[in-house]
């Protein structure tokens, strides 16, 4: 325990490093997965190709990817950018399937009604499909956030500093408290980011706030309410 009290600064610094590594991939994977997931949901051929390739991408173990990726994209293996790109790839791999499934879960009748009252397919996507798929997307993004925070620690073994550095350092110097502090800090950081996403979800999707049954059966669409 004394190790933790005398190294608070170190833990805080590594936490900040960790945030820099894990927040961009979470945001980027959502932004990139939206068009890919929408494309996968639209045509049968694109669905097979896109979901098949993200499935394979997800099967690639993290450490080998961290080593192979710099050779492909030309970054340095020890640069945070390399890790950010790799973590974004995993996030996209997880999120694309969620986006495709979430959009597919929107009732076809609702979409036809939207077309009937004059939505173009572009505005129907943004104002009807996306908000209705929102709770599913949020659930997926929360998984991405937790797994990204956990995966980012692996970068420590190739020399990218994060909370994972507490594991490698603690292991080499035989300090158990340092490893435990690292695990606790990683879990806490994951929970904090998860909480932020839940809050954002409540702000952006106020109609899910009232009752949990509404989330499962979003009959009243936000677009319908504002019109």
């Amino acid at each position, binding site marked *: 325990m004394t190790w933790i009290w005398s190294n608070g600064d170190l833990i805080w610094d590594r936490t900040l490093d960790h945030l820099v590594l894990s927040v961009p991939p979470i945001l980027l994977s959502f932004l990139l997965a939206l068009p890919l997931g929408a494309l996968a949901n639209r045509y049968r051929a694109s669905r097979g190709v896109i979901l098949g390739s993200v499935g394979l991408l997800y099967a690639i173990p993290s450490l*080998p990817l961290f080593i192979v990726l710099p050779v492909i994209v030309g970054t340095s293996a020890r640069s945070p950018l390399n890790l950010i790109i790799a973590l974004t790839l995993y996030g996209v791999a997880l999120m694309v399937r969620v986006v495709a499934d979430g959009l597919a879960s929107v009732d076809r009748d609702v979409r036809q009604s939207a077309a009937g009252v004059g939505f173009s397919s572009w505005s129907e996507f943004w104002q009807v499909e996306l908000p209705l798929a929102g709770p599913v997307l949020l659930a997926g993004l929360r998984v991405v956030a937790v797994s990204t925070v956990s995966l980012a620690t692996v970068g420590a073994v190739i020399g990218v500093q994060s909370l994972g550095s507490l594991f490698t350092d603690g292991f080499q110097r035989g300090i*158990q408290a340092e490893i435990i502090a690292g695990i606790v800090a990683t879990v806490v950081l994951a929970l904090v980011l998860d909480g932020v996403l839940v809050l954002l979800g409540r702000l952006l999707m106020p109609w899910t706030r009232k009752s949990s049954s509404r989330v499962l059966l979003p009959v009243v669409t936000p677009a319908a309410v504002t019109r």
Partner: protein
Amino acid sequence: MNLFAQAVQWILDPLNYVGVNAIPLRVFEHLAFTLVTLVIASAIAIPIGFFIGHTGRGRGLAVSVAGAFRAIPTLGLLTLVALWIGIGLGAPFVALTILAIPPILAGAYTGFEAIDRRTVDAARAVGMSEGQIVRGVEVPLGLPLLIGGIRSAALQVVATATLAAYIADIGLGRYLFTGLKTRDHAEMLGGSILVILLALALEGIFATIQRFVVPRGVISSRSKVVRVRSSRARPMVNSAVEKGTQ
């Protein structure tokens, strides 16, 4: 691209096929380690999962434990266990088994839960005992999801077994770490390519098994089911959720 050529050259180099560090030996180690871990994790997780799935008891606990494990970083667990029980094969073994249990457990009980309650009630109504229901109805119908759980566990174990080379002399990860230490890019990259190929091969094998274990009766009734159901099926976030972290 030159680096890739060097990596391929490293993989094909006859010198890497002899001695204690031979590629076939390392591949075998990696695979054997993965399989033994999966078998032990399955032996623990499947009976518990079947119990939870059949009785519905302890589900909340299982969900929260599995969720908590998803957030625990694998490297942290590996290094911590290594400090506890010392350097050697024991530490990665324990850590990987712990990591493999939650996805298999989830696969086992969600497989039971996904079965239409009426099917189970019908089995009970025709006089099947609880044991017969589990063996004859719930296990076969839940098998695809259970295999799916073992599949995610296998992916995770193959990936983490690579990381285990950080604390023990085991598997293909050794090439990555010696390559990193000696700045031998060909070895590092060659080893990485081998791990990736191994992971993709396992993924392919499990995907095929998963397809084959769907009972024939389920396949023949599937086209009808699709038409009866509303197009808004339950959102399948779980498929991604069960995969968890590597």
